[in-house]
Structures are given as C-alpha cells and as structure tokens.
C-alpha cells in the first residue's frame, strides 16, 4: 500500500508550521504504511551554503568520529547538528564535493541521504508517529515538504529502504505502488554508472529520474519518459528546490488527492491526510488525472 503526503506553502502561516502540519498528515497515513516513514523538508537556505544529511547505524560513535575527523581538516568550516540517527552538516558550497567524498571513502557506516541548499531527508524504520517524534519534525519550518509511510512489498524493511529517495541535489522522490521492470532497469542504469544502495524498486525510479536529469532533461521531461519506460503501478511525488510534482501511471490504481487554498497546495494518498489542514473544508479538492505531470513551484 504506502501513504504519501505533501505540503507546499504559499503563505508564511503555513511555512512557519510546516513541520506541525506534515507530522499530522504523515501520522494520519499510518495504516497505509506502518513499517517505516520519512520526510524531505525544504527549510531555510543560507547564502553559499549546502546541507548534507547523513544517517548512521550507531550515531553516538559514528557522528563523534565524523565531527572529529572534519574538525581536523583546517580548511573545512562547518556546523553539525544531530537529529537522532541523522546529522545535518552545513558547509560552504565549494567544499561539498570534498566532504561528500571524504564521508563516502572514510566512513562505511555512514550513508549520505541528501545534499542540497534547502533539502534535509529524515527517514527511519518504525511507526510514522515514532519517526516524526524521533526527528522532532513538528519543530521544523520550511517552504515545502513531502513525506511517505511505507508498507513494504518487494524489499526489506530497512532505513535505506524507507522513502524519500534522493534523486540529486535538492531533489527527492516518494512512491506508492510497485514496479515490475525494476531489475532490468537497474541493470541498465548500472551500466550507465548509477549506483544503488538497496534492492528497492522505488530507488530505481529515483535513479531513473536522476539519470535523465543528469543527461540534460527537465524534471517534466524526465517524468514523461518515466511514463514510457517504467512498467507497473505508481503514484510519484517529486520534491525539488522550488516545489513538488505529481505523476500517476496511466491506469491510476494508486490513490491521490490534491487540495489547494490561497495558503497552500497539499497532496495526500487519501482525503484523511488533509483533514488536519486549516480551512480544508473551503479548499478546492480534486484527483490528479492519470499520466499527467503536475507541478507547483515558488
């Protein structure tokens, strides 16, 4: 099954409470996805800074070691904030590649979940209510965010198998559905030097979109080529630096509801996910059409 939520703020009253709204929305989708949950929050942007979100198996040791290691490199200035099993490292955009390479080469127990000016990804195994509490999502502010509750069908229940999957800097994807040609697509993408962390079908969809965009396609074009190349069921919500996009497969079995008011655009797998939002009873509520790319941006 799986549940998806998304919230795009048009006004400050929504962005100031983005985490509160997204937490409630995510919890309402618990019975669609009780095994793991995750969110991508597009928070404050700092001039010429980048954020790297890192996940650790044993955060206490691993983060201490990483912090010590980075502090020893005199040329790198950074800030380091730990949120349970995740840490967000904020540093100069020029040092981004150096630091991501250092982490990947030196710390096999750490996983980089996201890199971006605005995006931070938090995901973990457990009930959605536990996950939002663990990361204190309710305290977070931002322009937009997307979340996912997972009911695993074709690969293991692990932190890395949880959504969202990063698809590039400030970009991520969540998926409700199942792909039937993910193994052949994965092999094809691997031949094109894409790398994979899991056996998960949604990671293949994320990688597919990343690959297409790296080859010069726009997000819209990448999503449209997904309609041709991906076989299976899907409702995707894709987060970018400026907003989020929605795509459903042509058969559109997987549910999706959108709501718009002067204050926000919201996505939910079901209407239940939207009922906690302000003035939802006055919102324009509709179902996105199959095989049609939707996008809202700032």
């Amino acid at each position: 099954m799986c549940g998806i939520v998304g919230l795009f703020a048009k006004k400050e009253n929504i962005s100031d409470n983005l985490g509160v709204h997204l937490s409630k929305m995510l919890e309402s989708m618990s019975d669609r996805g009780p095994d793991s949950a995750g969110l991508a929050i597009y928070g404050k942007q700092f001039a010429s800074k980048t954020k790297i979100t890192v996940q650790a198996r044993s955060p206490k040791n691993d983060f201490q070691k990483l912090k010590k290691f980075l502090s020893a490199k005199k040329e790198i200035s950074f800030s380091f904030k730990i949120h349970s099993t995740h840490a967000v490292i904020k540093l100069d955009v020029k040092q981004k590649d150096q630091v991501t390479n250092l982490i990947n080469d030196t710390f096999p127990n750490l996983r980089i979940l996201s890199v971006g000016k605005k995006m931070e990804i938090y995901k973990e195994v457990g009930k959605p209510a536990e996950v939002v509490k663990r990361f204190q999502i309710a305290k977070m502010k931002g322009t937009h965010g997307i979340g996912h509750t997972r009911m695993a069908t074709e690969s293991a229940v692990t932190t890395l198998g949880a959504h969202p999957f990063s698809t590039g800097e400030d970009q991520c994807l969540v998926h409700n559905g199942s792909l039937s040609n993910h193994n052949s697509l994965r092999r094809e993408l691997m031949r094109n030097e894409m790398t994979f962390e899991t056996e998960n079908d949604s990671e293949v969809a994320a990688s597919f979109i990343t690959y297409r965009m790296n080859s010069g396609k726009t997000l819209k074009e990448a999503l449209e080529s997904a309609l041709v190349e991906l076989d299976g069921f899907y409702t995707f919500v894709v987060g970018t630096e400026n907003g989020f996009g929605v795509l459903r497969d042509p058969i559109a079995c997987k549910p999706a509801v959108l709501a718009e008011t002067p204050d926000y655009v919201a996505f939910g797998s079901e209407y239940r996910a939207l009922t906690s939002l302000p003035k939802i009873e006055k919102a324009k509520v509709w179902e996105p059409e199959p095989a049609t790319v939707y996008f809202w941006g700032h």
Partner: protein
Amino acid sequence: MHILDFNKLSLRDINKTLQESDKNSFFSIRNPKGSHALAVGINKKITVKVVGSVGYYCAGMNKFSDIKVEGSAGPGLGENMMSGNIHVTGDVSQYAGASGHGGSILVEGNASSRCGISMKGVDIIVKGNVGHMSAFMAQKGNLVIFGDAGHALGDSIYEANIYVAGEVASLGADCIEKKMTKKHLSDLGHILSNANVSDYNPDTFRRFGSARSLYNFNVDNAKIY
C-alpha cells in the same frame, strides 16, 4: 433526527447504531473526516445524511436505505449495493458502484476511473465526467453520464446501457454506439426521474452498449485455439 458525531463516537459505534436502528429512522453524521467504510451493510429503509467528505467504501452493500453525502467520497462508493439510493453532492473516486446489483447512485460532481465496473443492475448517474475504463465488464443496469467519458468506455461490456451527453474519449473492446430508440429515451427519463433529476435535455444523450461479439462464442474462431 439523531446526530452521530465522529468527534464523540467511533466508526464502529456509528455503523452499529445505523445497522441496528429502527426502520424509517433519520440520522445525520457529523465530522466524518474522510473515514473509511461509513454506513456499510445497512439492510433496512433508513435515511442517512453525512455532512462532510468520506473515504473508501462508503455505503457499501447498501440495501433499502437512502444515503446522502454532502461532500466527496473516496474509492469504492456503494460497492455491491443491492437497492436504495446514494447521493453524493461532490466528486467520487475510483470504482463507484462497482458490481452494484440494484438501486441508484447520483453523483453531482465527477466520478473517477472504473465507475460502474462490473455493474449488475444498479443505475449510476454522474452529472460531471467519468474517468477511464468506466462500465468495464458491465452486465446490467444503466450508467448515465452528463459530462465526458474517459478512455475505453464500456470495455468488454455485456448487457448494460451507457448514456453519454458529452464527449467520449474512446470506446473499449466490443462497446459500440447504439440507436437511441423511443424505448431507450423513455428508460432514460425513468432513471432520471427516479433520482429526481429533471434539468436535462434528452436529445443530447447518445447510447452505447455491447456489440455482443466478445461474449458470444463464434464457431468460426474455433480453429484459433
């Protein structure tokens, strides 16, 4: 009138109250907040008004009762209903009226994909548009669409009638346009007047149904197997 409020009662309590109520009772349900499986399995003539939008499977298996939703409904509205009336003032999601045996469903907004899939005698009236694969494998009953129909309308249809006032994106396998006879015009009038719909021009409707070539075995095809 009895008021049942989701802010005070659980779904289970509300459904139990509806199912065990006296004949001809009238209920108003408040704050449904998209709840699933509301007012399912009622088998006596009662009247239920739901103020707000509901989730999956509302009014499933309905028998005799009149259920009105002042809002929109999620997937599977009135699934396998036997009789009675369902009226939704907003939109409905996928497979509304799926496999319904009788009674009528009136949707004032749009219906999503697979509306009336495998219908077996129910009348479904949609004032807006319907999505793709509507009336898929429909066996009996009537689907009346005031707006447009999505792709593959009436795919693999048996003996149901489809009436469409708007555009049809495409017809499914073995579904064809048929002549609107006097009998069918009169049938359409009855279906709509039973649902208290009077604001329509019967001349705008076209009729679609089965070419009957798919479900009748043709001996000339025997050598294919």
